């Protein structure tokens, strides 16, 4: 497989992995919640805990994206099933995290 073919198939998940890792690290390590909330949103209940939990969830989804990229070369159905399941998990966990530390 040429680099061009690789990027054609895996380029989008790879790009998303980098973006999600960047935001995940900004949240988890730098505790910068404006990275995802913007500057005109109301303050959260516990900023440090919110940033850590949100960062961890972003990294989780980044890893899910990377896994999807690998699965794309093996089985398309498995790749889609994996990302759908991970998206649902992300949604549920994010909702819980928001209730606990957010607004």
């Amino acid at each position, binding site marked *: 497989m040429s680099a061009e073919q690789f990027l054609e198939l895996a380029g989008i998940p790879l790009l*998303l992995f980098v973006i999600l890792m960047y935001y995940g690290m900004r949240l988890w390590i730098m505790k910068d919640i404006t990275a995802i909330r913007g500057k005109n949103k109301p303050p959260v209940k516990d900023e440090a805990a919110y940033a850590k939990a949100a960062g961890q969830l972003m990294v989780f989804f980044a890893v899910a994206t990377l896994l999807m990229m690998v699965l794309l070369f093996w089985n398309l159905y498995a790749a889609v099933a994996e990302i759908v399941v991970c998206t649902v998990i992300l949604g549920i966990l994010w909702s819980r995290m928001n209730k606990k530390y957010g607004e």
Partner: protein
Amino acid sequence: MVKTNQQKIKDFLINNGVIIVMFILVIYTGLTSNNFFTGNNLMNILTNMSSRLVIALGIAGCVITAGCDLSAGRMIGFGGCIAGTLLQRMDYSGKFFPDMEPLNVFVALLIVMVICAAFGTITGFFIAYLSVPPFIATLAMMEIVYGISLIYTNATPLGGYVQEYTNIANGKFLGINYLIWIAIIVAAITWFIFNMTRHGKYMYAIGGNPQAAEVAGVPVKKTLILIYMKAAAMYGLAGFMLGARAGGASVQLGYGYEMEAIAACTIGGVSVTGGRGRVSSAIIGVAVFELLKVALQYLGVDANAQYIAIGIVIFVAISLDIRKYIAKK
């Protein structure tokens, strides 16, 4: 504090700097190229603008609520692929559904828009009910739709469309291409929704201050779902239009269009911080963006350098928008 005329002029020049520079570039290109200011070129630009405008109008709704929709490009590709598989000629050797008669063009369009709208509804649900930030929810949907598109088409490019479908891109009414008419109709409907309906007012209220909107009785969650659903239906329509124009489609159709659409909205005056933006903003933004691309082509700028120029425009436009927001604060 009352601003002097000089300050007002300075603010105007800074806030509309991108549009002014584009305007100068277009005039320069027109004066230095023989074929730029011609009827054919104008029609070509308007036809190219048509699908971009439909996408931008969809995204504008999301941006007005201080959101975004990064799944637009993939939805366009998916929409184009669905339309393609439903509208292939019976005698085409690579027909995707060999035994299926091609559907009526309007039925196919309806199917495309309904399927895309369903995905948009899911995105809206994640944003409204699970409080997932729009950019994460739409990134996730981008991946899901990309994966589903790959499964649906088996990563095979589609072609061999029925003439009724390709005629949408070639046919004319009153001397104007059907695609342009579609864009005009979509713009008119969007204008009506934004300005004349309760949903439109709710949208601006949410963008201005979601907490205040909720306290004031605005159904924030339902409105957000509707916005993302409507936007996704528009991406489906744009995919359908692009497929007709190209005479083929693949999962790569619409790649990167979401960024151009967000940038076009921002250039035109739809604020990324929410609460501000009109249909005319999207039209101006798309026109400026399309003119920039055509002008750069006419000036013989290298294709890769064009990407850099477009990137600079996006960067400057968003920086100016944030400057406006800070000044307002």
